[in-house]
């Protein structure tokens, strides 16, 4: 890992002098398009995003400039819209060919077409034979295109990046003594990367102070303090979160679906931090761009996230509630019941939507529903662990009162059934989310600036009181609750057996399940006796050995025993190679 905080600052958008349809192979004089192969309606086709600016201009030696950045910053492609949307923010994760992860933080705002771009658009419209809007109406329409400010980093300080990008955007709208470039240069180059633990780095952004901290060395680095776990618990019930984790442990094909891009990354990252000490080793694309939907057909385990607009029409019942909320932030301001005033000529089509394999498990974050696919539900956790985990989570996450009605009433938990196919349907009233969340909270996850529900909209629903009491979310506690499951299940994995107690050289060095490299077999293919572990004593009774070794005055388990004891040759055969 590089010891710099930020790799690149990038600006992505349409070419300032031209509009290039994405599918056309047109290349030529960029100012006057002379020939465009037959184009369908130019208002509905995607355009080619470009990298307009970047800093630094040269690639870093150890981390080349990420390819396909434009796809990830604009997952739906660059489309024209007729009414500007509010600025939005989300983060995405890109895995490089070396396996290292790059975190992209993307701030998107909308700008009207400039004169040259408008000329190009008019030209494209003239060429088109598929126009369904009258030319007089077109002349009055204003069109907008997205532009993205993006920070690429290897470190997940996403909230700090968000604050910085919002600040830069605000500064760009106001006259300022210091050039904008100076702010970018300062942020990218001059903030030192904090070490693991020991020190934190503070930085002033506008009136706010942000802190960059990394977990101490003796904490898992995936339990980053900058990670937001709240959105996951706001979206999904405890039971659904647990069944996603067991699905991840059984290496299923999992697709997260949401109308909010930021939720896709936040929930996927949070879920993956819960499986420590294990790591997800398969395809991981928390925000899958529309052009890469083919990944869903891969016969491999994957964990990807897609936007609800990519769902096929047959799944629109999952999307309909979500898209109703999506309209709050979208071009059409309407709540269910209010018909849209006019039809938008740029409405979505289901063209090129996602095709799922039957065994793919789909998680609908907006509606807290899970479709386990043809394989069925993954195996559940052992009952005693499940109960303990639920009790822990309930005590740690009790502030989700506005969202989850079962927490409000503290209903006694019914006996937990085996995981049902779609939990929310059989939930016996324990897993109902407060419906206000869908209108007051959900549409705003993506918005870059905090926004309140308009009073006119709020009349329709009871606005939930949120954030009236500041609370400290104990993310470490939640992580520890999940860690307890793994320490329980894998408690014995390093279990040792005492050998040759009568020998002058006491050696407890023979591992029961782990197969260390030895002289006879320096590179064993199988390194763990899986079936022995499966059929071993359960619950694990490792304690007897631990205590025995302590009574015998042996060094504690965590010091490298076989390495520090003089071992006779007979034992070395089974002991790890020195």
């Amino acid at each position, binding site marked *: 890992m590089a010891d710099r905080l930020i790799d690149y600052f990038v*600006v992505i958008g349409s070419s300032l002098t031209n509009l290039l349809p994405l599918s056309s192979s047109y290349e030529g004089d960029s100012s006057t398009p002379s020939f465009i192969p037959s184009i369908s309606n130019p208002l509905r086709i995607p355009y080619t995003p470009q990298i*307009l*600016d970047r*800093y630094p201009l040269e690639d870093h030696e150890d981390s080349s400039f990420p390819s396909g950045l434009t796809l990830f910053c604009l997952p739906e492609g660059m489309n024209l819209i007729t009414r500007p949307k509010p600025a939005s923010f989300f983060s995405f994760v890109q895995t490089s060919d070396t396996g290292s992860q790059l975190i992209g933080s993307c701030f998107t705002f909308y700008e009207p077409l400039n004169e040259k771009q408008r000329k190009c658009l008019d030209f494209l419209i003239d060429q088109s034979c598929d126009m369904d809007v009258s030319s007089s109406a077109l002349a009055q329409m204003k069109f907008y295109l997205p532009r993205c400010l993006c920070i690429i980093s290897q470190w997940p300080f996403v909230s700090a990046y968000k604050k910085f990008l919002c600040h830069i955007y605000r500064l760009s709208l106001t006259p300022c003594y*210091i*050039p904008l*470039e*100076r*702010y970018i*240069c*300062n942020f990218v*180059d*001059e903030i*030192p990367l904090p070490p693991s*633990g*020991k*020190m*934190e*780095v*503070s*930085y*002033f952004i506008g009136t706010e102070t942000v802190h960059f*901290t990394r977990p101490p*060395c*003796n904490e898992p680095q995936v339990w980053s303090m900058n990670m937001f776990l709240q959105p996951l618990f706001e979206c999904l019930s405890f039971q659904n979160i647990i069944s996603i984790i*067991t699905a991840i442990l059984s*290496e299923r094909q999992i697709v997260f679906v949401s109308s909010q891009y930021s939720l896709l990354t936040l929930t996927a990252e949070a879920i993956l931090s819960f499986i420590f000490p*294990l*790591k997800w*080793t*398969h395809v991981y694309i928390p925000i899958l761009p529309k052009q890469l939907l083919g990944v869903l057909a891969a016969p491999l385990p994957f964990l990807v996230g897609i936007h609800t607009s990519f769902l096929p029409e047959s799944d629109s019942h999952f999307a309909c509630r979500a898209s109703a909320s999506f309209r709050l932030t979208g071009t059409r301001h309407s709540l269910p019941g209010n018909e849209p005033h006019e039809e938008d000529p740029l409405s979505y089509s289901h063209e090129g939507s996602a095709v799922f394999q039957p065994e793919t498990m789909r998680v609908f974050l907006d509606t807290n529903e899970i479709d386990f696919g043809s394989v069925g539900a993954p195996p559940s*956790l*052992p*009952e*005693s662990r499940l109960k303990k985990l639920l009790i822990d989570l309930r005590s740690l996450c009790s502030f989700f009162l506005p969202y989850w009605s079962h927490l409000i009433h503290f209903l006694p938990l019914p006996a937990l059934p085996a995981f049902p196919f779609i939990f929310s349907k059989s939930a016996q009233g324990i897993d109902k989310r407060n419906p206000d969340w869908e209108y007051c909270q959900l549409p705003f996850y993506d918005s870059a600036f905090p926004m309140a529900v308009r009073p006119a909209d709020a009349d329709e629903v009871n606005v939930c009181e949120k954030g009236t009491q500041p609370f400290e979310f104990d993310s470490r506690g939640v992580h520890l609750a999940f*860690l307890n499951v*793994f*320490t329980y299940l*894998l*408690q014995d*994995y*390093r279990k040792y057996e005492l050998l040759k107690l009568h020998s002058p050289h006491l050696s407890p060095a023979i591992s029961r399940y782990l*197969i260390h*490299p030895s002289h006879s077999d320096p590179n064993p293919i199988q*390194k763990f006796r*899986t079936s022995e*572990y*499966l059929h071993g004593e*359960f*619950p694990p*009774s*490792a*304690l007897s050995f*631990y*205590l025995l070794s302590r009574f015998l005055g042996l060094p*504690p*388990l*965590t010091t*490298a025993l*076989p390495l520090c004891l003089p071992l006779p040759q007979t034992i070395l055969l089974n002991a790890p190679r020195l």
Partner: protein
Amino acid sequence: LSTSPSDHPSECTATLNSILQSQAFYQFIEASVSNYGWSDPDILFFDESIEVQINRSSFLSFIKLDTPFLLDVSHKHAKTIVAPSPMDTFDDDLLREIANPTDSLIAATQFISTDKTGREVFRYSKNFPKLK
């Protein structure tokens, strides 16, 4: 000796089996076998977490396993460094430079100085290219 609640072996087997068969577990075992000196902090953390769990579930409370790695407080955040703000290294020379941008990037020179309140501040002086 263990006081952990009893599970029927069959209940655990399905979950445990899927974990043990997974690629993730394979990599975890690879790491814990090859890092036999417990040089991987994540694995050391997990091993000591197991000991903590055993300590907790043991009714023989007078015998506790040591968890020196987990209890090490020397890694705690104890110090705050203030990163330079855009104003810090911004002066008239730099303004002139922006008005007449040069193509070359001058290598960063880093030095630490102390600000008015006595905190250590990282300072760089560096030119930057003009963005569009």
